[in-house]
């Protein structure tokens, strides 16, 4: 009797299935409960990835709920990549659509922020431009500048006080979040990703830059959405986050 990889994988994730045939104890007897070691290793391993990757979600749900929800998630969403640091991409959407959690509307965005922080951490290195680089451009040409942003940069838009929820559950003594929408910028100035609140219009501006618009066009795009858009404040965030890696005319 043979066992194929699909059967093996399905049985690893579904304890209600019998251990596949063709597996033995090395002495000719059926493997039986020995298969549970693999089930346990996989479940524990993936749960630990989620615990490590989503500390704020873990805090918000509580240890016991988080473990139970992780168990449901990992069975519905087994890894699709052998690279474990990518595991959990589907977790934000799962939390949004998981009926028992429907009353906690912000979980999706918080999980998306935690995933963005992890992706930022693992993103490729890139050398940032020096702040003087922008000062060297003749003012009349600034509008034509095209900025390239660092691979570690992430942008999240939320109708919830996303940054405040994250910070309240991450930094001791941070004030309790009040209801408001927040856009969050994640940069990686040194080795660790740093989330920050983006001022109004900042998200439109950065999205426009990412789409390849010139600096001038991106400012106009931002001003359409937010007349009070403050270019220097957002540029300062990008520069201090070492998130601009080229500025070309």
């Amino acid at each position, binding site marked *: *009797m*043979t*066992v194929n990889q699909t059967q093996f994988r399905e049985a690893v994730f579904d304890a209600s299935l019998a251990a596949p045939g063709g*597996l033995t*104890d*090395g002495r000719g007897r059926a493997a039986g409960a020995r298969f549970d*070691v*693999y089930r346990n290793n996989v479940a524990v391993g993936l749960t630990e990835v989620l615990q490590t990757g989503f500390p704020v979600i873990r805090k918000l749900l509580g240890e016991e709920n988080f473990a139970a929800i992780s168990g449901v998630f990992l069975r519905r969403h087994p890894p699709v990549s052998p690279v474990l640091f990518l595991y959990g991409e589907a977790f934000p959407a799962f939390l949004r659509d998981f009926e028992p959690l429907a009353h906690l509307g912000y979980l999706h965005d918080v999980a998306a922020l935690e995933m963005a922080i992890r992706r930022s951490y693992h993103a490729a290195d890139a050398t940032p431009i020096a702040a003087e680089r922008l000062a060297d451009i003749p003012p009349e040409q600034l509008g034509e500048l095209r900025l390239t942003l660092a691979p570690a940069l992430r942008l999240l838009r939320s109708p919830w006080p996303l940054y405040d929820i994250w910070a309240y559950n991450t930094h001791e003594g941070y004030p309790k979040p009040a209801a408001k929408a927040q856009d969050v910028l994640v940069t990686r100035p040194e080795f660790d990703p740093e989330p920050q609140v983006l001022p109004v219009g900042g998200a439109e501006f950065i999205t426009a830059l990412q789409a390849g618009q010139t600096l001038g066009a991106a400012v106009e795009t931002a001003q359409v959405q937010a007349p009070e858009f403050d270019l220097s404040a957002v540029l300062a965030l990008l520069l201090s986050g070492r998130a601009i890696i080229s500025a070309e005319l």
Partner: protein
Amino acid sequence: MLLENPSSYLAFAESTMTETEFLSEITRRTGCGLLLDVNNVFVSATNLGTSAEAYLDAFPLSHVGEIHLGGHHEDADDHGDPLLIDSHDHDIAEPVWTLLERTLAHTGPLPVLIERDDDIPPWPELEREAARAGRALSQLHKVAAE
């Protein structure tokens, strides 16, 4: 890259190749090195009713670039036979030390790493294990010098 031998808890009835044959073939075809986890050798041999010594005799030791040691948890299978789990949460078992010395006698000195992820004891206990691995290595230098 060093590829590590696994801890096994079951066997595939249809298998036509031993693990050591498989690992030898991989090193031959890819040029990669091997990481020999001596605790895994003991765990697999106990779990599958095979000989750890015979496994090591068949292992392509010349490709080993690093050795791992670790502790395992003792459980039992459906028939009450020992089922060892590679849990990294115990002291290194005595037979595993014997397998280490046996391996080093064939390979000569190699980097040895002790894996301990859970139920971490006070530092002096860990240090004792590290020192014992160190003695197993320095013993080789002495033998070589004589």
